[in-house]
């Protein structure tokens, strides 16, 4: 009895899991592999690994691969009609009998090779797992292989989806290497069409450093003859440019703005960054097409470039970076960080050269990619100093660069959100003030940096209330004259959490300004929200409000220059005065393009009706 006995009379039996290979393959095809087409990648990968292993044995060995599609079904009629057959050939290291059992028939076995090279980082794939992906498109996988080492026999391994396999020695020997044969499974026909198959082979293997022949319909061609531009030499700059741009078009189908060659000895990276011909959104994922040791790793690799560099899309080959398990990106380690730093520097240098040598072109680039450049300028003082000459900022008098802004001012005035900009822009121009709208990402940080680097400048966060502080004061006599008016106004406006002030400002036609700081605007939002919420939620909002540090009031700033306001301040009839103030308030709120809350709506209705009644009363005598 083989059972393992534990202490005492309890006997414990050990068993092996029964693994249903069919189920596993189903799992793999539906989950592990994002799409059935990865069997092409896995087969290429196996070939690459085998050729790499053989080059350790024989450094002069010239690797090559063949992908042959035999359309057995089309050319013969009758009982011999069979499904298409696909043959993948490599002249790599091949497998001995022992290795066949070890690699082909053990799932999950990492690529340990009998030659002691097994642990080397050069083997990217996992042989057995890779072969499993073939079952997704074929019921049987046939591997014919002959080792390039001492054992010179040729083996044929036939693995079936039910988990069984057979092994025989072939009398007819092949050249050392491996041949994988797949018969198309019903439903997988699209992967056996010459067009699809060739596209897939190009997709994954176009950068492989040895020839891959594709043979179909009796026609053979090498599909990776063309080398990427960074591997070519060109006669002049123009030809170089044309080659790179054409390469970008062929890979991404886009006419890029420009190209920037990339190279980093750390991570062994080379390739190209293409400058996008459109403005990317900040939130979109910044992905690149990345080859690992010349095999396509992913088209969606993230983390290759610094965060600010979202104005380019790259194609690179990395020889010395580690992929994550999902093979979508690289393992975040120091090597990757150093690579990222180097690539970032090259992009930065490109921008600086452009600023120096081709300002017109830089302007065009900035039109598309100012966000990316702002993101870098925030982090990098020297870069900032160059690019403030170029970066556009929105102001109430139009777009301008920081250099333009600071030519004749030492105070950099800005607002921090769109609402404040809307409020201040409408009056700032009339006061000949220029205010920057720094509501956009990076802008406030850049302004902060500006005053740090240029000590003569001061930064001033403007809000609509503070802006009115710069308006002209009334004379002492005038202040006396309006004192009663102001105190009544404060009384009238108190239920609206609003305080009154009076100044002289332009334009004259504007009777009063209704200003809300961001905090006061939030208070107002809470008030209007409480009009619709039930009592419980209203009480919760009360609590939130109670926790706010200081209460901020809205402000109504009357314009003493306005004739109507001027006249109103001299009205002595309190009822008429109250109503007038209320109406000036409602009008100012409406002019600020804010919805009225229900209290203000009542005010508007009562006020209008009141004035109509007054008017009617006044003319009654005339009518009769």
């Amino acid at each position, binding site marked *: 009895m083989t059972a393992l006995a534990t202490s005492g009379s309890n006997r414990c039996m050990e068993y092996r899991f029964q693994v249903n290979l069919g189920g596993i393959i189903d799992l793999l095809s539906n989950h592990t592999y994002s799409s059935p087409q990865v069997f092409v990648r896995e087969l290429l990968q196996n070939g690459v690994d085998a050729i790499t292993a053989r080059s350790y044995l024989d450094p002069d060995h010239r690797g090559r691969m063949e992908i042959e599609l035999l359309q057995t079904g089309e050319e013969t009629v009758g009982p011999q009609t069979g499904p298409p057959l696909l043959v993948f050939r490599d002249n790599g290291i091949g497998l001995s009998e022992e290795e066949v059992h070890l690699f082909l028939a053990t799932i999950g076995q990492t690529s340990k090779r009998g030659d002691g090279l097994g642990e080397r980082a050069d083997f990217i794939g996992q042989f057995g797992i890779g072969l499993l992906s073939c079952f997704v498109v074929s019921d049987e996988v046939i591997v014919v292989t002959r080792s390039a080492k001492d054992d010179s026999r040729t083996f044929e391994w036939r693995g079936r989806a039910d988990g069984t396999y057979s092994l025989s020695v072939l009398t007819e020997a092949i050249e050392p290497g491996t041949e994988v044969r797949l018969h198309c499974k019903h439903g997988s026909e699209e992967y056996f069409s010459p067009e699809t198959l060739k596209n897939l082979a190009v997709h994954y293997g176009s950068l492989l450093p040895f020839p891959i022949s594709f043979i179909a319909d009796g026609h053979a061609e090498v599909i990776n003859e063309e080398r990427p531009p960074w591997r070519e030499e060109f006669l002049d700059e123009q030809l170089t440019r044309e080659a790179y741009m054409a390469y970008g078009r062929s890979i991404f189908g886009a006419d890029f703005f420009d190209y920037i060659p990339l190279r980093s000895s750390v991570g062994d990276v080379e390739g190209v960054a293409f400058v996008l011909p459109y403005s990317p*959104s*900040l*939130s*979109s994922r910044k992905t690149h097409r990345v080859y690992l040791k010349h095999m396509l790793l992913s088209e969606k690799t993230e983390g290759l470039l610094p*965060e600010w560099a979202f104005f380019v899309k790259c194609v690179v080959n990395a020889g010395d970076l580690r992929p*994550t*398990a*999902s093979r979508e*990106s690289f393992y*975040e380690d*120091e090597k990757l*960080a150093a690579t990222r730093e180097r690539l970032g520097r090259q992009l930065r240098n490109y921008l600086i050269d452009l600023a120096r040598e081709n300002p017109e072109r830089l302007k065009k680039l900035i039109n598309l990619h100012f966000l990316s450049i702002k993101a870098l300028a925030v982090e990098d003082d020297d870069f900032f100093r160059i690019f403030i000459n170029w970066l556009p900022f929105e102001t109430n008098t139009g777009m301008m660069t920081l250099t333009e802004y600071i030519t004749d001012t030492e105070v950099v005035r800005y607002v*921090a*959100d*769109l*609402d404040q900009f*809307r409020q201040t822009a409408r009056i700032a121009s009339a006061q000949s003030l220029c205010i920057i709208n720094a*509501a*956009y*990402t990076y802008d406030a940080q850049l302004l902060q940096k500006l005053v740090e680097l240029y000590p003569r400048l001061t930064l001033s966060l403007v809000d609509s209330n503070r802006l009115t502080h710069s308006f002209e004061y009334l004379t002492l006599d005038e202040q006396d004259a309006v004192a009663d008016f102001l105190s009544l106004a404060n009384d009238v406006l108190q239920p609206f959490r609003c305080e009154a002030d009076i100044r002289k400002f332009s334009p004259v036609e504007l009777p009063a300004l209704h200003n809300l700081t961001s905090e006061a605007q*939030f208070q107002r*939002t*809470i008030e209007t*929200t409480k009009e*619709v*919420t*039930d009592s*419980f*939620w209203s*009480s*919760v*909002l009360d*609590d*939130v409000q*109670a*926790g*706010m540090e200081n209460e901020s009031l809205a402000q109504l700033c009357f314009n003493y220059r306005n004739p109507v306001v001027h006249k109103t301040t001299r009205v002595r009839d309190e009822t008429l005065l109250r109503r007038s103030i209320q109406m000036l308030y409602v009008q100012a709120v409406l002019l600020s*393009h*804010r*919805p009225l809350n229900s209290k203000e709506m009542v005010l508007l209705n009562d006020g209008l009706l009141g004035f109509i009644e007054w008017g009617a009363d006044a003319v009654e005598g005339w009518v009769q």
Partner: protein
Amino acid sequence: MSNAAEQVLELVNKSADVGEGEEQISLLEEAVRIADLSGDMKLRYLARDQLVSACVFGGETDKALVAYSWCLAQFDQNPAGFSQWSILWKYKWMMGLIADFPHVSKEKLYVMMDDLELRIRKAGYGLRAIYNQRYRLEKFRDNKEQAIEYFRKMQAQPGDEVSNCTACEIDDLVSFHLYCGDDALGVELATPLIRGVEKCGSVPHRTYANLLLPLVRLGRHAEALTFHQRGYPLIEHNKRYLDRIGDHIILLALTENFARATEIFEKHYPWTEKSRDPFCRFRFFRAAAFLLGSLAARGEQPLRLNLPKSFPHHSLTGQYHPTQLAGWFEDAAREIGQRFDERNETDFFCRTLADTDSLNALRKPYPLV
């Protein structure tokens, strides 16, 4: 399409492009204003619904509450008009953030919790989500036994459309074991999050921060610092993570990477003036107090710091006295902590703040590479 509708949709689309943060919130507030002026209920709801998400993910929790309460009121008036799932999903967010406001009474927290449970039950969903919320609330109130009980109850319930995503579930499990004192298990369970096998909009951003101290307690300083280097870039641009930035500062102070710690403190201090989230402010102030206290313990040389003019004790020379500054931040933290403790009926916040000994016991110089 009406002019207002066009404007609102344009702003909503633009907001989706700019990513989380202040600009996104500002764009959506503008959308709300225009929608409100138009009076079109569908537009008003759409804009506010987006604003709720933007505020939650941009760290303006009070604004999120206000916008959400408006949406909930409209939903209750016209339940057929809006998505029930969406209102429930966001209700969970509100439940999570309402406890961060100490002025909201304990009773109201439970009224809200019961209301959420009733709504979830009525909608036909299971109780996994609500047990998760109850666990979080009890944990927040320092009722360890009850918290653990709710977590166990949660685990016994199947997941559904209103329970958390896989990444958040794992993150919860990690926090749970850390909470129960099993640092090693917590760290181990976080592996799929660290490897990026499972991720979402908040994970592993917060996960890294949660693991820093446990790793130090396990003596795995090198890993803790690596997690700092990987985790900090994920959160450094988002006010929402002000509390977690505090965790990073504490790690750097413990390992005596003072230059880096100070740089991060200076960079994020201005956020505390903008943030109206008391919980975040407490955590950041506490970390600042610990950092400055650590610096003071090394000697009384004045510190050169770049703090904004709005800082209450701003020094024109940029020179600060570490002990005084530490005291100021400790007081600021204590003031908030006391309010939390009063409401929660515990001494958890003030106790944690006072307990610098257990942190100091972990102090060990370990250079960043």
